[in-house]
């Protein structure tokens, strides 16, 4: 049991990292990764939303959608509803805790709603047939994987500021190249855990 959960964590954070292996959530990944501090904050906020979404998705799937036979056509609608509400909640909490952070996030905070990792986590839970504990761990590790990707990228981008980048590659170009290289590195984790 515990071994399965450990495999799930390693599998979600490293092997099937949502950003580098599934290529989801690219928008905030490139948008908020220019400073280490804000990227950590964004990672935390997204992790919170992901974990809560996983819990909510589990309950909605098994206590509302399946008993009434609605999962075929109401799954996405209901998950989006939950995600949007959770993001609203996170927005309130962040504004309360750190207005500076709130300003630094800017548009990317409400955009967690449209972060495809969140919807992917909600949709993957019934698809993979995770139980309650597994759902929570899955959501949490999806968030941790996203945070890891953001922190790696932000660290590299902070150093890139001082690098002598060829003029044609300055700005977004070098960032996309870096993201591609990181994704290739993460390919090396393939086969680390039995899935």
């Amino acid at each position, binding site marked *: 049991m515990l071994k399965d959960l450990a495999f799930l964590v390693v599998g979600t954070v490293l092997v099937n990292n949502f950003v580098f292996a599934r290529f989801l959530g690219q928008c905030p990944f490139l948008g908020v990764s220019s400073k280490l501090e804000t990227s950590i904050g964004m990672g935390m906020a997204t992790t919170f939303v992901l974990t809560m979404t996983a819990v909510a998705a589990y309950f*909605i799937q098994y206590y*509302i*959608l399946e008993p*009434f*036979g*609605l999962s075929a056509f*109401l799954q996405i*609608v*209901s998950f989006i*509803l*939950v995600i949007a*509400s959770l993001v*609203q*909640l996170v927005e*309130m*909490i962040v*504004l*309360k805790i750190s*207005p500076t952070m709130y300003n630094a996030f800017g548009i990317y905070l409400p955009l967690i709603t449209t972060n495809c990792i969140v919807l992917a986590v909600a949709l993957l839970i019934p698809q993979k047939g995770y139980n309650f504990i597994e759902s929570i761990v899955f959501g949490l590790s999806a968030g941790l994987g996203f945070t890891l990707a953001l922190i790696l990228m932000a660290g590299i981008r902070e150093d890139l500021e001082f690098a002598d980048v060829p003029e044609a590659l300055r700005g977004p170009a070098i960032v996309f190249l870096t993201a591609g290289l990181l994704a290739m590195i993460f390919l090396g984790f393939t086969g680390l855990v039995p899935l």
Partner: protein
Amino acid sequence: MANTIITSILSMGGLGLAMGAGLVLASKKFAVETDPRVDSVLEALPGANCGACGYPGCGGLARAIVDGKAPVNACLVGGEAVAKKVAKIMGVSDVGAAGDRKVARVLCQGGKEEAKFKAEYTGVKSCRAASMVNSGPKACPFACIGFGDCEKVCPVGAITMGEKGLPVIDEEKCTGCGLCVKECPKMVISLSPEKNEVHVRCRATMKGKDTRDACKVGCIACKQCEKVCPFDAIHVVNNVAVIDYEKCRNCMKCVEKCPTKAITSAFAKRKKAVINDTCIGCTICAKNCPVNAISGEVKKKHEVNAELCIGCSICAEKCPKGAIAMVRSEGDIKTSSCNACAEV
């Protein structure tokens, strides 16, 4: 089929209600108390987000004003009217000096006629480009180049290029945002308080003779203005006269004296002191007048010699009875020295 529709509506409606209720509770629990004054101050500000105050947009200034970090009259664009509104919101009675509004002024008079050209420039019609070629086409390296970079950058259209090839600034339209000051490669535009009407319109720091050779209206550092100034407000520093705007009282004596007419002011705006009947003959004004323009016997109404009066308004400030009014022209007397209520 109908059953599916009903359960869908009920389950989604219920979910929506539950989420909505949760958010309502959360918004109460996590409510951030913002100072309501910030919003009302923001409403009073012009909302142009020009940044002339030094804060990022009007919102930034509104927060700074409420936090007490900025004065109520910090908005240069809004001027006195906005300062009064903000002061009312903040409960401050003292608006601060209304003359704080700053406007841009061109500190060069070397037009096509006055300044000598050392070369003919035929390149790109931009001051910045021209200034890079041997400091510009004019003989004076400090002279306005006159391609109108400032005119292009002005967001309110207050700058037009005049006939002399120099920018003319409409002080009414100018918001004091300072964009032209930054744009000018020769730095001949500067912001100064609107109330100051006397300006040394030359920045040439060459020796007097060199300035004279390059331009007819340059400051030759003769120091005559320094000697004639009754208020110690003008000094020759680094071969060019500089006015201390704090001390200058717009008396325009230096303007009269300047041999090259490098110092300018609008003589039409020169004020004159007028003493009305509430004068008790205390002689304080006569003693304080720097040019001895006031005469009169003790305990009798004093008179101002309009020929001599330079409009410095020291007498008006010193008069214990408030019997002296500073007026611009004959027409102003009626409005500014009505004492009908004081006599009742």
